[in-house]
């Protein structure tokens, strides 16, 4: 039996760009060994960063990826289930099926498969931290996000149920909803969309990567072992 690596291992999905990449960079600096994935090639070239091209909506690919992590590093301490899609906001009446299917695949199936397979690794050692990414679209019931927010709402629900299931083993599961975080994807949504979201936030500004990583650090810390099944809404009083 191989020995686990000495460093703490953080697994991040959707780590090649946007928020996932920023999270990976932050926790590499914090001394974690970071294992990331995305559908595309890596955009990070760091000694302690290991990337695999994975479609998280594909059960077979996710199983092989997580088993590979287990075989190679023998531990997963923290999972940040970040992979997701942001696409143009359309009212439900004119939302095409392919947009709906994309959200179901990346948010519901992707989160489910990754959490299921990683939780098996954590169950074996009876410790771990699972952090999923939800959206302010859920508490705000934002117009034009019926598919997006419905699938993000599913992420919250599965996080809470998994939290209850894994609590006896000392594994915590929490979710956070970032306020507007400026990425290529959100820039593509346009200034009007961003202004509308900011208007509905309590703290009317975009959040920084540091602020997001601070939430993850808090949830991942050993001292947060009594916090599970919670959703942290950044920049919003809900």
């Amino acid at each position: 039996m191989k020995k686990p690596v000495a460093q703490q291992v953080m697994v991040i999905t959707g780590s090649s760009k946007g928020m996932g990449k920023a999270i990976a960079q932050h926790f590499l600096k914090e001394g974690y060994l970071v294992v990331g994935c995305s559908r595309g090639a890596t955009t990070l070239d760091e000694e302690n960063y290991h990337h695999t091209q994975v479609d998280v909506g594909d059960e077979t690919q996710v199983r092989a990826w997580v088993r590979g992590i287990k075989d190679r590093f023998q531990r997963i301490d923290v999972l940040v289930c970040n992979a997701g899609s942001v696409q143009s906001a359309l009212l439900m009446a004119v939302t095409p099926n392919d947009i709906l299917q994309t959200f179901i695949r990346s948010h519901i199936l992707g989160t489910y498969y990754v959490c299921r397979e990683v939780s098996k690794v954590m169950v074996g050692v009876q410790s771990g931290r699972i952090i999923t990414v939800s959206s302010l679209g859920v508490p705000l019931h934002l117009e034009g996000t019926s598919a997006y927010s419905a699938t993000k709402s599913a992420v919250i629900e599965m996080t809470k149920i998994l939290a209850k299931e894994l609590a006896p083993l000392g594994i915590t599961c929490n979710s956070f909803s970032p306020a507007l975080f400026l990425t290529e994807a959100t820039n593509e949504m346009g200034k009007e969309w961003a202004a509308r979201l900011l208007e509905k936030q309590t703290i009317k500004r975009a959040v920084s990567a540091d602020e997001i990583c601070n939430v993850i650090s808090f949830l991942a810390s050993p001292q947060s072992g009594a916090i599970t099944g919670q959703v942290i809404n950044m920049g919003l009083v809900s």
Partner: protein
Amino acid sequence: MNEQQAIDLIKSSLQKLVNNGMLSKDTVVSPEMVLLGIGSPLDSIGFVVFVTDLEERVSHETHKDLYLVLNEIQEFNVNQPHLTIAVLAKYIVQLSAGQMA
């Protein structure tokens, strides 16, 4: 893999639960022992730990990426769960032989 080898792997996984204090050391392990359903000494989280450990042992032993999928077990009805060691061992033999979908 034959049935006896599969049973031995199952026993090893159950022993791990005993070592973890999740299963009484007085538990009688036989092919008729119920793993899931009325009469099982495992609670739901104990069953998860058991399946996770067994999946790893089976993959390691066969050098194949194998996953235990409960609804593939023909003699196991998920609506009336009653999974014994013998039934699970048969399934593992089929799985390792590549006979499952």
